[in-house]
């Protein structure tokens, strides 16, 4: 039982990254037959078909992953913009740009860290094979050909580990519990609202918990304390010692 809990916990964290990280890793995946495209195939649970509309709102996907304890980023808060159509984690931005049949198109951007300069490239998520349990993600990255075979292999392995069935099932269970089997447009909006309300309720707990004890405090905020300690633990005893020695000499 305890082992299962541990396993689920680890998978939570791993799977937490599959939607966002999947997109982030796209540039590294080779697309057979087209050198400038990277292609990524994910074995997907068919149940996600019911929630395909959420793909128009990658921001909501990020929030729901956090709600399901599958944090897309362990170190950064997600920033959601434009009604959930854009999501940012650190220097990485994903923005929904359109839909054609079962294909969802995104603009993915990576900040270069120099001012606001960033590299953007299109990403397409093809759900036409979802009923058969397959999702295809294609990124049209200009420099894809520069990636070595070893690098591609490593990323393939990573992605294989990240998109595991347990994590997908967890997300699906969460969505099912929230949606209670609804699928019309109006109810999709209700679902998105439920995701946000759930996130709000969880954030109340976070606010109460506060930051972890033991977080690093900048040295600049501790100079007065260090100075005080130096006075009492070094200067004061040294002063006493000098006083004693001088008094002794006087005697």
């Amino acid at each position, binding site marked *: 039982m*305890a*082992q299962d*809990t*541990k*396993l*689920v*916990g*680890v*998978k*939570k*964290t*791993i799977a937490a990254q599959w939607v966002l990280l999947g997109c982030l890793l796209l540039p590294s995946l080779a697309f057979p037959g087209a050198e400038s495209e990277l292609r990524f195939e994910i074995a997907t649970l068919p149940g996600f078909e019911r929630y395909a509309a959420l793909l128009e709102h990658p921001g909501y996907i990020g929030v729901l992953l956090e709600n399901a*304890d599958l944090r897309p980023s*362990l*170190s*950064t808060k997600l920033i959601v913009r434009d009604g959930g159509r854009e999501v940012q984690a650190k220097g990485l931005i994903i923005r929904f740009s359109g839909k054609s049949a079962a294909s969802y198109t995104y603009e993915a951007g990576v900040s270069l860290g120099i001012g606001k300069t960033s590299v953007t490239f299109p990403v397409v998520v093809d759900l036409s094979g979802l009923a058969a349990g397959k999702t295809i993600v294609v990124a049209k990255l200009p420099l894809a050909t520069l990636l070595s075979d070893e690098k591609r292999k490593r990323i393939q392995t*990573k992605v294989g*580990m990240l998109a595991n069935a347990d994590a997908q099932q967890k997300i699906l269970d969460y969505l099912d519990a929230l949606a209670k089997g609804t699928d019309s447009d109006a109810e999709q909006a209700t679902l998105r609202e439920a995701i946000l309300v759930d996130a709000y309720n969880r954030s109340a*707990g976070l606010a109460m*918990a506060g930051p*972890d*004890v*033991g*977080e*690093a*405090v*900048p*040295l600049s905020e*501790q100079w007065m*304390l*260090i100075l005080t*300690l130096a006075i009492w633990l070094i200067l004061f005893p040294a002063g006493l010692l000098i006083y*004693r020695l001088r008094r*002794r000499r006087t005697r």
Partner: protein
Amino acid sequence: MRVTGPWKFGMACGLIAAALISCKLVLTWDLAVRVLLSPHDDSLYVERAFHLISGEAFGPYDSRILAKYPGMSLWLATTSVLGIPFLVSVNTIHIAAGLYFVVALLKAGVSRWVVLISSALYLFNPITYGNEWVRVIREPLDTCLLVAMFAAFAHILVGLGKERRPPWAHVAVLAVSFAFSMMLREENRLLWGVLGLFALMVAWQARMALSKRRAIILTVAVLAAPGALTKVYEYSLRRFVGEHYGQPILHDFSEGEYPRFLAAMRSIQTAKDNRLVMAPQEALQKLRLEVPIFAPVVDRLPPPGRTTYSCQLHGVCSEWSNGWMLYWIKDSAFAAGLTPTLPAAQDYFRRVRIGIESACATGRFRCVDEGEAFLPPMELRWTRAYVAEGFRLARMTLAPEINFRWLGGSDVPEEVAREYRAITLTERPATQSSALDAAPARFRDAMVRPYQAFVALLLAATLVAFAVRLWIADRAPLSGIGLIGVLAGSYVLLRLAALSYVAVFLGPFVSRVVFATYTLSVIIALPFIADTVSAWRKTQNS
């Protein structure tokens, strides 16, 4: 034969002491060993002792078997073989160490009233009827050994120049208690410093009281006897572990490959910069991908959360704090079948460390050197934390929290309960009524607060006396009791400083970590204050 005044007084004191001991025994007769399933503490010691007397070394190897020094298990095995119940053994050595100290105080010429009050404070110390005292943990035994050790110090120092016979019996007590303490608790290695200081004191005192040759012999003896016995004892234990488990490691958290692996892991730079977190989730996930042999361990680690001990006890909720994670990693490696034996465990953690170092060297990880020991080196930026932990420990040293509340019985597997019975020789389990409802329990509870308040004031006064005694030391040379007080005070402060450093990275300690120094302080406080007052008067008169 005519009984003179001092003899009458002595007999009266003896009778009062006997009455106090009887009262103490009546007051604690209902206490029984608490049977707990605590795989890194109580049940670990009991299981190892059980295997030891069964001729199976410490038992089959697992990730916890060398998590603590073996001293406690050796004590349990010995008392079990001798047919002495565990609590009887601890209480006997507690009373014996106290009496031994009291005799030293009397020999030093401390007022009998002062000695009597000190004895009463020592005897009725609430620690000795709290929950921790009846658990099978190291602190009660460590407390008694420390008092015995300082009593031997006192006998040797006080007897210098007064007694004709060399104090070999006291040197023997010192050597045995020192050597055993060294293999009981890991931080007891600080006692090496105390032994060194004591040898200096002996050399200084003996120079004036004895011939040069005898002074040298005594100084060398008080240093060499405990030192040599400790090393022989340690060597024997290492050899024993080496023969049965393949490598001479006594404590695999601070020796061998595991601390090196931890040092390599914490060198990985992540967004999480928390002194209590050596293995953040981000680093673990990176390791999972870059060092595949570590992936099965990461997969088995429990997730952090708000319901974890780490969150509830240390306030670290988004991660597991070091107080748990460092154990989880070893346990998970064992559970994954990666560390079935001690040599295999050493080899595994070595390979993971090399994997990390290689990833650092090739730039796959961004790494910063954070030392090679179990704990990272102290940095200025942790000053505030160090001061906070120091204050917390100082408060504990003055008035430790003692747990009297009955926590309820835990479900202990029958096999473990059987081992407890066989090792502690306790048939009668502790019950709720014995802990709360009985008259002795009510009386004990009523005594705790007044006792702790009085002793806190006494110890604060002792601290002032400590400073005053050092200030006037050149005008009123330190007596035997003065020297013992300074030695004890130095040890308390040194230990406080060292434990504060450890707490910066492992999280706050519970009160029982100061039980030994608290008890020592209680018995030495009043005689030391009296000695300081007497020395102060002398300086005023002169």
